[in-house]
């Protein structure tokens, strides 16, 4: 399994700057690692109003448990919400905040 390094933090802003299909291979590797977190307690997104508004939530620890809201923020840009999730997972996996976090 790929281990994140502190310098990988420099790659994450690319997530917002580029189209998903144009992501660098280096960013893709980081994203893959950030997707490899356990389901229990995983940070994900709920479309409060499908395709319009989004909130950040945390999954339960067992099958069937409800998700819980992480904060009160309401996003209208799905990619921005996704980036906030990636930041939370980054912090969880590395113990470090992202620069500008």
């Amino acid at each position: 399994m790929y281990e994140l390094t502190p310098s990988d933090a420099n790659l994450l802003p690319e997530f917002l700057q580029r189209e998903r299909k144009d992501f660098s291979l280096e960013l893709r590797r980081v994203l893959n690692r950030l997707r490899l977190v356990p389901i229990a307690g995983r940070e994900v997104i709920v479309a409060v109003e499908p395709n319009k508004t989004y909130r950040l939530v945390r999954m339960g620890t067992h099958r069937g448990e409800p998700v819980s809201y992480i904060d009160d923020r309401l996003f209208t840009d799905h990619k921005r919400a996704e980036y906030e999730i990636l930041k939370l997972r980054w912090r969880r996996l590395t113990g470090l905040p992202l620069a500008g976090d």
Partner: protein
Amino acid sequence: MKIIGYPAELIRRPGDRAGIMVSTDGIAAFDAALVRIHCGDNRENGPGFKETAVESCRRTAVPGRKQETEIGSCMTVQPGPGIPDGEIGFVLNVFATTPTKGRQTLLARWDEANKLGFRLGIDGTSTLEAEIGDGRGAVFGFALPHPIAARQWTTIGFGLSGESGKAVLLMKPADASGFGHELIAASGEGPRLGAKAAGLALSFAAHGTGRESVPRMAGFFNGRLESPVMLARLPSAADIEAYQAHGPERVAGAAGLWDFGRDFASSRVAEATGRAPEGHLVNLPARGVTGSRWDGTAQKFLEKPAHYRAVHFHDDDLEDCAWEESFHFDLPKDLPSGIYAAKLTAPEAEHHVVFLVDEPAGMNRHDVAFLASSVTYVAYSNEHYDFDDPNMEMKNGMVSTFEPSDLYLNEHRELGLSTYDRHSDGYGVFYSSARRPLISMMVKGRAWALNADTHITDWLAGRGLGHDLITDHAVHAEGLSRLSRYKVVVTGTHPEYWTTAMWEAMTRYLASSGRLMYLGGNGFYWRTAIHPEKPWLIELRRAETGARYWDSEAGEAYMNFTGEFGGLWRRSAVAPQKLVGVGTVATGFDYSSYYRRRPESEDPRARFVFAGVEGEIIGDFGSIGGGAAGSEIDRADPWLGTPAHALILARSEGHTRQYNLVPEETPFHHPTINGEEAERCYADLLFFETPGGGAVFSTGSISWAGSLAHDGYANNVSRITENVLLRFADPAPFAAPPPGGGSAELSRTRIDQGNEFYAGIDRRG
């Protein structure tokens, strides 16, 4: 969701009674209207939600109430003189898959409310425990000193005397390898039951709650039980030895033997001694699974039934929600066939209960039939993979994003699993039932399966192209006669699950001048079974290979509904390339791409396809991933049966790294199996004629239909589709193709293809 429901029958016909089951949460009454769904996709980039009401079918102020579902499988044996009241004993094999997951019952004659009877179970810490209660407060419990091993066949003996109160418990692992396979026993003295429990049913894999309403059963067991033997005495070590060494028939003096090695499709379990009542399986536990004697010498349960005398029970099995009907519509006799819904409305609540209205047998009102993928719709219901599979984010290439209906499904596990899911003990789900709310068939949800197929019905309506709707289930039941009334059959976006009868009907249709438009991807993929007596149930096995979310266990590739080999059609008999020219090559869910026309599109045989179409690029737009070639894509392959005379008219390109070849396309994995780097990751737009003047047109892409409505249907995907539909509806036969008239790459022999590995794969046909 405060209101939810399901149709009594997923498929109805004009003139039928359409019963609707509804459960509400805090809603005292609701209104219901019958609507025809033309387009279920309400996303801003889609065609928009479109429905029309059938004015004669309305209900007002229908009383609402919460309806409960009993989930979890077991076997029950009704009380009667065949079940001993004096001394009673049992010997059976147990394969516990979650022995630490709470208290689970192996067998019981038990009323939990009154603590009456006896119950044998696992206590949640792998310890085998028994309890005996007299219904008046005296409960005696005892346990074995050593735990039962997880996923190891173990022979259990249990018995008690209703007269003396003596009880015994025996356990011996059936697998003699390893350590700790000696017999372990415990005994004690409990209350004297006499005949106090005589009115209680015997149950296996769960116990009775003593309630008249849901939940009637509790303590559901995860794991396998092998044909239980009942005795009119306490079991002994000799009985354990006899069962292990020679099978249940060799246990002396059996008063009952429920043989799981017969009638594999039935919910009735034969009783082999003739002395006890038969058993009834509740909620569809898995059959045709290996038992303790399975040694690999047979792969099919019918060949050596004694190796398959097991039933796999789960605490999340579900056959039928069994809700009470809330109301019904009498469908007009002249109702057009189509996708319909009972639209339920209440203040701040709305829900469409979707069902299909099939064209009546023996008639048609149009020359074009839209073949609704009803088997596929059931197979996807109710999938939980985004919640339960840790790799789905990796597959989707983005953070999981749940809609309210997803959250509801996650929290309402009583609505059952889909064939994409694993049971709570990690084993794959074989069956799916239509008798429950089908979240995966909801409109105004994701553009997938039924909802995505409404892009086609929307387009047909939008272009004024009259059509009937027919269903997989009707083709399965009626065969060629269901298809042969039509000049053209149009598939949905994802006709993935096909029964043998459906396949044979389509083969015969194409051989008798039928015309098929395959407007999808990943079609004709899994061989599927419909239950012979309960058509609302389907079965599949994820055997051998294929893009799948679980693997069949060793020795369990055959479907117990039919006895057929399960898995991919490509591995069973005929690959989809032979039927429709293309077959699955890859899946990916980020971006869709476009097709580039090939010289064959100018071939006189296929010129009609591109009439009025300018330019080289087809479908670089659309509401699913932004292109007409995507999600799940298929390609031609002569090795697998693409006819040599077929014309590959266009081929997609530029797929992303999120696309990956399906396992059967790459027997071993390597770094260049993604859409960006793989040599053969593309969708083929293909046409070929069939003997008798028929023809096939295939798009090989799920997202094709998502492009139809672009720019008010004024686009090249719509034009191509309409060109084909109109020509296919024209009775003028297609002429036989000239020899060697197909795309050059389809004429290669097997030897050529072997050499191809040395010479390099063609890159431009």
